[in-house]
């Protein structure tokens, strides 16, 4: 990194330019607008852009053709490239160290799926089961959504499609059902248990308490918040509250097979500091990918 004191004039002579607040001003505004249009939360946009701007100003970059192969890139383009790098780093930083998105434990690993209504928890439970089967594991699914019409049937159908057992006890509270399921897993040689819970609002105190009860009784090794890629500004508030109450191991963003930009991922990551674990890329059970930051970063930046 060349010192910030590198003069602009000297830089020009060597085919280089120092990035200044002035020559990247348009790019900064464009990035702000683009991130807002991508549904990144407004305070996160401000923090992120200010931080990248501070990093960028004073950098000396190549902006002139060096006669052979270097393309002429404007200060604006350099700033955008720095944004992409920073965005990737923010989205995926610590996860590179974690080789495995799921924390496993012997003899039984537990995964708890939580989130707002309709985000894709039940479908993703099926997808995780499919992923675990490929990893030579023996999942057991728990239909702990006792409210939604045919929620238990829905999970049972997915279990049948995969040849994976689904545990459900009619008339039993979710926290007890999940605890019984762990016992059942141990007794029947299943090594991963996934709790599918009902969708709920973060402001529904009674239902949030139910999640705390499940966590209390079963101590899950993984708690994943399932978030819809099309979520808007409010995603941050939901994620913060779920994280405050539980806390979360990470989150899974679904429905990325559409054209939603997915900016909520940046907001949630920035505010909770929890990692993105998986991406849902379709309606069928094979459409689950382990999270990689590059694709999502360029999608959010637009």
């Amino acid at each position: 990194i060349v010192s910030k004191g590198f003069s602009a004039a000297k830089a020009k002579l060597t085919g280089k330019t120092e990035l200044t607040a002035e020559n990247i001003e348009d790019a900064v505004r464009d990035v702000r607008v683009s991130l807002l249009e991508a549904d990144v939360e407004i305070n996160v946009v401000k923090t992120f852009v200010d931080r990248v701007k501070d990093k960028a100003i004073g950098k000396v970059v190549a902006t002139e053709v060096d006669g052979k192969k270097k393309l002429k890139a404007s200060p604006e383009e350099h700033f955008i490239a720095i944004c992409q790098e920073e965005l990737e780093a923010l989205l995926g930083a610590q996860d590179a160290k974690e080789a495995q998105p799921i924390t496993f434990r012997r003899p039984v690993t537990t995964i708890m799926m939580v989130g707002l209504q309709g985000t894709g928890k039940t479908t993703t439970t099926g997808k995780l089961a499919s992923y675990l089967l490929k990893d030579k594991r023996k999942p057991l699914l728990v239909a702990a959504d006792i409210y939604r019409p045919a929620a238990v049937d829905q999970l049972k159908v997915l279990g049948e499609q995969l040849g994976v057992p689904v545990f459900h006890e009619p008339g039993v509270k979710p926290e007890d059902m999940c605890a019984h399921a762990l016992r059942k897993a141990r007794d029947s040689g299943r090594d991963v248990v996934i709790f599918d819970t009902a969708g709920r609002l973060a402001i529904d105190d009674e239902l949030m308490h139910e999640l705390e009860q499940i966590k209390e009784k079963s101590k899950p090794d993984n708690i994943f918040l399932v978030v819809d890629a099309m979520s808007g500004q409010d995603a941050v508030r939901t994620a913060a509250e779920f994280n405050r109450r539980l806390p979360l191991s990470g989150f899974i963003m679904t429905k990325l097979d559409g054209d939603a930009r997915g900016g909520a991922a940046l907001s949630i990551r920035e505010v909770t500091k929890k990692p993105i674990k998986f991406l849902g890329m379709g309606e069928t059970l094979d459409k689950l990918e382990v999270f990689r930051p590059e694709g999502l970063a360029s999608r959010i930046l637009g």
Partner: protein
Amino acid sequence: LFVAKEIPADLLQQVEAILLTSDLGVKTTNRLLESVKDQLSKKELRDQQTLIRAIEGEVRSVLAQAHQGEWHLPEVKPAVILMVGVNGVGKTTTIGKLAAKFSAEGKKVLVAAGDTFRAAAADQLKIWAERAGAEYYAGAAGKDPASVIFEACEKAKVLGVDIVLADTAGRLHTKTNLMDELKKVKRVVGKVIEGAPHEVFLVVDGTTGQNAVSQAREFHEALGLTGIVLTKLDGTAKGGVIVAIAAELNVPMRFVGVGETADDLRRFDPKTFAKALFG
């Protein structure tokens, strides 16, 4: 963002924050500020209360214009309402609520299980039909949705029902083959019942950000929407993206979902909605 020299910087920032965090989006936020700037005097633009009330009024008028007044069930029998939208937004649950509402008004309702794809979709709808005391029609799993809805409409005529509520599978608007499937459903119902579908309602999740505009645009272009239902407004999201939808497409907002039970449905009211944005 919006550069208005007449509005003091901190007030502008405050107002922008309210609009943007409510998911109105950059474009709509700028448009609203632009229009009130023309309506208000220099002095008024510096007063927080006046500025906010003016923007609220502008939001109300954009929504009212698209709203075109109170909605009434089409005067045909049976009236066919097709529910469409992306995955997980609340289509099936909204049909359950509408079935309950119309049944309570003394109408005979038939719900059609047009989602032949998703696990237990037909079972879910059947439970809602039972709760509402509505007739129910489903085909074999995996059957062509257009055929199922066609048969449901034939049954509706035989039974003499007043309203058919046709459920469809959730689908992302970017999937051409799935959008074509919906176009086929629309064509086919028109063959069995004159003028059907009489209503095509797009269901939009209240927590959705700017993608809702893209959803509305594509579904409108493919099918011609006659109304929008905004769900999950019992949460903390404001659903402001419908202001952008109203301004751009002029499709009326018809209902709002405020919970998961049969009673949790309200008629959309532009004034109430605009007020809640700033409340």
